[in-house]
């Protein structure tokens, strides 16, 4: 009865648009009241959920990304990507994807990527003769690479939920992120050849060098983050804060495009974004504690295993569920609610937790570009001044490409686990 109340309140709350954080709190409170458990448990669990060492790095990584985003990196990264791939047919589409991959290594957020790169690339592509729907679609699709390629807030959350080190999680996303990018580049090239999109003149190796020189200080941040985490000389929190200081110095004094008067606002906005994530984690800790006390993850695992214990089918079922949930729910919220129950199921059929964590994040990223709640889709359609439907149609080939990569990562564990086990055995 108590569990039925928990889920009834939870589903009703989501359905009528109550924030996920509050829905988790309301359903947990209803459960506790029905179970006659004192409500003082909830503040304790909320505190314990937020007071987790790994989560300390979240505000720093968000701040580093926001500082870089406001510090003049967009044009420099686009110029570098354009020098590399702009001469191929559909070159501006490829530039868009390449820039997203590089951008993802710096800011790690899909929406920032869609807004920043889209703001420059979508008008540019339209001017060069690309259809507006294609321009918006390629920007939206490629922005999902951001949170796969390190650094990545969803990967930090998964690290906190599973106990896997942040360094390992970041490395696990590297190969799938590159695969996603390359897959979308191939798709873009095929579409461009079929629809005879334009290409640019080859600008020579000199331009690649000059563009790299311009983007170097921004690109170096990815190196600093990975070096800090993987060498063991700094904790994830220290790495994130040092990256923020670095982003501030590069934006304000090297590129000189970060207005100092904006810095307090950027820091505060980053704090508010981080607070929203941390509050979600705190309230989810109460919900998660109830699920574990009621042995719900075990019951889900047992229920599915009574139908099939074939790992191929179980992975497929997990992926379909995550894709469906990802269509309606924001990535981090979906991860926090579903990760632990599904991890029990995945490990029961022999899936490595690191492997599961990687394809779960990858899967939920795809949801950012699917209707009805694909945030990146809305951002890019807005920039292109288009209704949603033509962009949804144009994004289909890229969605297909991302789904193929998802299946590859789901069924070839080495794509996720090889790099972390080589570097951090």
């Amino acid at each position, binding site marked *: 009865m108590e569990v039925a109340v928990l889920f009834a309140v939870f589903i009703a709350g989501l359905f009528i648009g109550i924030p996920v954080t509050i829905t988790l709190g309301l359903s947990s409170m209803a459960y506790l009241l029905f179970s006659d458990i004192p409500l003082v448990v909830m503040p304790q669990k909320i505190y314990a959920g937020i007071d987790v060492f790994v989560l300390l790095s979240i505000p720093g990584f968000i701040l580093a990304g926001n500082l870089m985003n406001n510090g003049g990196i967009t044009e420099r990264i686009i110029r570098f990507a354009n020098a590399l791939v702009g001469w191929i047919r559909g070159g501006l589409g490829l530039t868009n994807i390449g820039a997203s991959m590089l951008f993802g290594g710096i800011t790690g957020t899909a929406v920032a990527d869609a807004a920043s790169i889209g703001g420059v690339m979508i008008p540019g592509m339209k001017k060069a003769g690309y259809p507006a729907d294609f321009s918006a679609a390629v920007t939206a699709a490629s922005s999902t690479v951001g949170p796969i390629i390190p650094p990545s807030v969803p990967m930090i959350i998964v690290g906190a939920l599973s106990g896997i080190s942040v360094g390992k999680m970041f490395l696990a996303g590297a190969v799938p992120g590159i695969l996603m990018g390359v897959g979308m580049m191939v798709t873009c090239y095929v579409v461009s050849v079929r629809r005879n999109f334009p290409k640019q003149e080859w600008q020579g190796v000199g331009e690649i060098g000059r563009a790299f020189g311009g983007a170097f200080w921004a690109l170096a941040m990815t190196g600093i983050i990975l070096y800090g985490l993987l060498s063991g000389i700094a904790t994830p929190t220290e790495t994130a804060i040092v990256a923020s200081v670095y982003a501030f110095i590069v934006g304000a004094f090297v590129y000189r495009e970060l207005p100092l008067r904006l810095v307090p606002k950027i820091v*505060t906005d980053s704090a508010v974004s981080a607070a929203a994530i941390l509050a979600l984690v705190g309230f989810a800790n109460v919900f998660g504690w109830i699920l574990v006390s009621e042995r719900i993850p075990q019951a889900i695992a047992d229920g599915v295993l009574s139908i099939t214990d074939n790992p191929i089918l179980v992975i497929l079922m997990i992926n379909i569920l995550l894709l469906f949930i990802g269509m309606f729910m924001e990535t981090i919220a979906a991860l926090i609610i579903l990760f632990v129950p599904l991890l029990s199921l995945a490990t029961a059929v022999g899936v490595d937790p690191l492997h599961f964590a990687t394809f779960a994040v990858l899967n939920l990223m795809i949801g950012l570009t699917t209707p009805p709640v694909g945030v990146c889709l809305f951002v890019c359609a807005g920039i292109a001044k288009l209704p949603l439907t033509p962009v949804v149609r144009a994004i289909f080939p890229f969605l297909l490409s991302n789904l193929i990569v998802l299946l590859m990562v789901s069924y070839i564990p080495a794509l996720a686990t090889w790099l972390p086990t080589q570097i951090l055995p």
Partner: protein
Amino acid sequence: MLRRLNSFMTGLCRAGALTAFAVLIFAVLLQVVGRTIGTSPVWTEELTRFALIYLTAFGVGVALLTGDLVNVDAFCDALPGEWPRYLRMFASAATAVLCLALLPGAGKYVKIGMLQNSPAMAMPMEFIHFSVWLLLAMLAAFGILRFCLDWARIDYRRPMTGEEE
């Protein structure tokens, strides 16, 4: 009146979140610099954790207004007429009710903290546990504020700060 209250509450909480973030950055940098030149103070890691919880407490209410506290709006935003506004008001009321119901429990949790000091800084844990009470109080206050703003049909989705007013 409501606009001014919104501006005041948002400005106050943004200032609190900024201060907590500044403390967090200071503590982490002190830790890094200290370790580089010798040994870092033992209390920096503890201060970082406390700053993070206060950052959450101050920032979460503003996040409710800015939409950073995400919801599943696929269904309710598709409803006709005034329904999305009514559902937002219901969500705000539910937020306030939840947090007000949890405040007495949070008060007890603060009292439990009176019996302990933090290991490194020897800070009374009641001050640290108070962050959860503050988080819930802020959410309740901003829930009520959002309800009133929707009631009065005032657009609050643009982040408001004191200086913008």
